[in-house]
């Protein structure tokens, strides 16, 4: 690290546009202090609180039956919501990225809509639709079907909030690649499905994987939307983030932070995976 105005970011650029050393120091110091104070210190605090009573207590909090049930429900929810949105994302990208049609811009904006909606409202619309006092509530009750305060509601709310992730990832990738190779495959006699499996999928697989990681991470961690529809029935309709909240509200702080630390590790793993995959996306 040279300190005399060297600017490695723009090699060969004359030093006239470099910043003086004290400015560099101040900017770097401020950036590190800001990110460190706001992100690293709170993250470290999660592990500190989780391990406050020792490793044995940490382990006990994780194998608690309610925690395990919450973990299973979280996995089940993600296992339904993510494939649904993957199927949608591929279909949407196939239609939107390759063909210019009227309403294309509106459709793209509508796909982004869930990102602009507060998670609480995302959960609330399903309560208005399927809740006991909702539009379809009486009909569901007459047929003994449970959506709200049950798995279907949790899956629906999770699917809503994770809706755009795969599509948003695939549309730009497929637009950038163009359709020449697919067209060649069709001309050579491949069917549409063969073309998809043999030509398109290998070319979009890293972009797809990136979308899947984003979608899964959000599905596992979603709190607000799921909180509205779940009813917080311990051991039955609690996902991991809801379980954290319940433990915290019951003053079981160490257990709450222990479960939270698992979610932190999942989030960090998803970030590492995204970094690795992003390099592949750029390479293809």
């Amino acid at each position, binding site marked *: 690290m040279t300190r005399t105005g060297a600017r490695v*970011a*723009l090699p060969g650029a004359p030093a006239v546009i470099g910043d003086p050393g004290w400015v560099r120091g101040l900017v770097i110091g401020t950036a590190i202090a800001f990110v460190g104070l706001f992100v690293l210190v709170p993250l470290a605090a999660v592990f500190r609180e989780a391990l406050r009573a020792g490793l044995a207590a940490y382990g006990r909090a994780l194998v608690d039956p309610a925690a395990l049930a919450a973990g299973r429900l979280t996995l089940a929810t993600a296992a339904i919501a993510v494939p649904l949105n993957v199927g949608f994302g591929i279909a949407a990208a196939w239609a939107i990225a390759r063909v210019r049609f009227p309403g294309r811009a509106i459709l793209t904006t509508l796909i982004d809509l869930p990102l602009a909606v507060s998670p609480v409202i995302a959960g609330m619309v399903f309560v208005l639709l399927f809740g006991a006092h909702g539009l379809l509530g009486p009909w569901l009750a007459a047929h003994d079907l449970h959506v709200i305060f049950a798995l279907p509601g949790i899956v629906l709310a999770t699917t809503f909030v994770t809706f755009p992730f795969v599509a948003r990832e695939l549309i730009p990738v497929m637009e950038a690649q163009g*359709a020449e190779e697919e067209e060649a495959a069709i001309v050579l006699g491949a069917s549409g499905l063969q073309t998809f499996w043999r030509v398109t999928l290998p070319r979009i697989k890293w972009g797809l994987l990136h979308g899947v990681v984003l979608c899964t991470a959000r599905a596992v961690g979603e709190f607000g939307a799921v909180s509205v529809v779940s009813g917080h029935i311990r051991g039955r309709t609690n996902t991991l983030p809801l379980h954290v909240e319940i433990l915290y509200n019951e003053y079981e702080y160490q257990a709450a932070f222990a479960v939270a630390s698992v979610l932190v590790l999942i989030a960090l793993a998803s970030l590492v995976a995204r970094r690795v995959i992003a390099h592949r996306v750029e390479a293809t």
Partner: protein
Amino acid sequence: MARRSLPGFAPTLGYTVVYLSLIVLIPLATLAVKSAELSPGELWALATSDRALASYRITFGASLIAALVNAVFGTIVAWALVRYRFPGRALLDAIVDIPFALPTAVSGLALTAVLAPGGWIGRWLAPLGIQAVFTPLGITLALIFIGLPFVVRTVQPVLEDLEPELEEAAAVLGASRRQTVARVVLPTLTPALVTGFALAFARAIGEYGSVVFISGNKQFETEITPLLIMTRLEQFDYAGATALALVMLTVSFAMLLAINGIGAWARRRAGTA
């Protein structure tokens, strides 16, 4: 329409529209159906009750301050990441994404732990008479946390693409470094900066999970609008919840349009420049 030769357009478009309608559009439309059951006067009264107005002040006020703080510090972080090489730069770049990746409930819990009077940061604030937990300050800090990546990630690519020739020309023509940054660099960054600010603000107004732990949820003091909606729902007051949700959605959609508008404006500006 040279690309019409690809098969599967009709079924994939059909599936896209049907799935979009089932998961997003029809559920959102129930809000409109629900609000149609109320007269405009009733809706207005529910949306402008004292408690609702207090929640807007807290939600929008804290979101605005948080987004402004992120605009300033996010630009500084982006500048450090793009312009300088220093040990730990790659790590800093990776850490910026953490608030995106972290479940909001975990963020809320973590911030409450450090800002509580006995926490790692709270213990330094307490002697100064500053209390963050259960105050609007705590809400603002939580919203700064969740909005942190937006400005960094919108400004960073623009800064990377900024051609050094522009700055060199300004410097050669006699501009001081300060003048160059103020008159050449910052105007180029403005659209990205405004977009990042708008994204951070839009995210903050709807935020729930990271705020509820730290806010203490006192009516008229630290009750954000999403929490008030939650409370109304728990009381089966669907009309009250609907009125609040309509206000939130209107603002959110306005932000979405504004963000798209800023993008179009920036592209036009880049095209004509």
